[in-house]
């Protein structure tokens, strides 16, 4: 059954409330309806936005945006002259943190308790660093490897990515051939498929890049 909150045109009634309307039956309903109160809170902001902007922040003509972006060279050539390549400096300041491979069950088969399923084809690797830890579970199928992992941090930031780079390439380089990357969930989990070879995993966290070298498949 559709609740009053989900009925068509209900937002018109809420909008009236935002504009100062005080329908007593509606106010009574709103006082017991959490969804309505949430809607009202958002709608008040929308109404204020409309009152301030007229409904939309105007699109800036691209030619104007381009002119303004170019003002620095025209107005402050003195700054340009003493230019420090800020982005490059920033890149140089990006901290490289190399994690330590604490465990590779493929290299230490005596740690039998870490093998899952006992099929002998699943490996576990564990890395530790000052910023984040990484656990990998690697399963071989045909000539590829399925890698399931978890990044361990106090709080995993949103929109984090992990990339695996062939070990013979610079993981911070502009163009890396054979790069494989995927998103990390807020719980720190991810999955991807890699081919045989040696890989370095890398994760950008704030202004550091954490490297996990020695993923040999």
């Amino acid at each position, binding site marked *: 059954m*559709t609740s009053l*909150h*989900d*009925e*068509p*045109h*209900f*937002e018109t009634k809420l*909008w009236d409330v935002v504009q100062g309307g005080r329908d007593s039956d509606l106010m009574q309903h709103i006082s017991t309806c*959490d*969804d309505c*109160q*949430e*809607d009202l*809170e*958002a*709608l008040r*902001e*929308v*109404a*204020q*936005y*409309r*009152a*301030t*902007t007229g*409904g*939309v*922040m*105007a699109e*800036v*003509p691209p030619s*104007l*945006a381009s*002119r*303004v*972006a170019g*003002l*620095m*060279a025209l*107005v*402050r050539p003195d*700054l*340009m*002259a*003493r*230019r*420090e390549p*800020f*982005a*490059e400096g*920033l*890149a140089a300041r990006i901290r490289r943190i190399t994690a330590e491979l604490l465990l590779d069950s493929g290299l230490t088969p005596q740690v039998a308790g870490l093998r899952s399923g006992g099929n002998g084809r699943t490996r576990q690797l564990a890395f530790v660093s000052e910023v984040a830890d990484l656990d990998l579970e690697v399963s071989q199928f045909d000539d590829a490897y399925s890698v399931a992992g978890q990044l361990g941090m106090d709080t995993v930031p949103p929109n984090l990515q992990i990339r695996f780079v062939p070990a013979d390439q610079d993981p*911070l*380089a*502009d*163009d*890396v051939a054979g*790069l494989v990357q995927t998103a990390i969930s807020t719980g720190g989990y991810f999955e991807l498929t890699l081919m045989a070879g040696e890989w370095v995993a890398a994760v*950008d966290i704030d202004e550091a890049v954490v490297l996990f070298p020695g993923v040999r498949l």
Partner: protein
Amino acid sequence: MQRHREADITDQLDDAALLRACLAGDQDAWTTLVNRYTRLVYSIALKSGLNEHDAGDVVQNVFTIVLRRLESLQQPDRFSAWLITTTHRESWRIGKPRREHLSDDGVEPVDPDPTAESLVVEWEHAALTHQALEQLGDRCRRLLDLLFLHDAEPGYEVIAAELGIAVGSIGPIRGRCLKQLKGHLAELGVVDSQR
């Protein structure tokens, strides 16, 4: 990839850090600052009654003032408030000849008191709400626009046709979209996240 990461990092810098980088002559930082605020400055100028050409002049003048005052900007962490105030002043200045012309015709100009704190708060708020609306998916953004921000106030049938959804779906989708919007507003500190 390296450049993407640098651009991402520059995007994430707060205003004070960007202004410091601009002082160091960094064009990327300037471009980020311009991208962050041009739309706000242009919107304020248009809303103050200027035409597109004059509003464009305001944008150029305001950002020229920013560049000239980089060293002396007080409270760089309140840059957006300063920028809004400066934009109102500049809009008022550029619109003055036209108002004087109107005044000759018997229409009294009204000083909008461009330094009023309430205006600054309103536009700072609007900029954040705009950011929250931009974070919505395309369907939600269009639906809320058609329902609440569109001057034409189109009917349900028109909205449904425009979005390719059933009329009966508008209510439930609207509820979900407002909930998402409230979440984004809470993340930006515009509304309380507790409720």
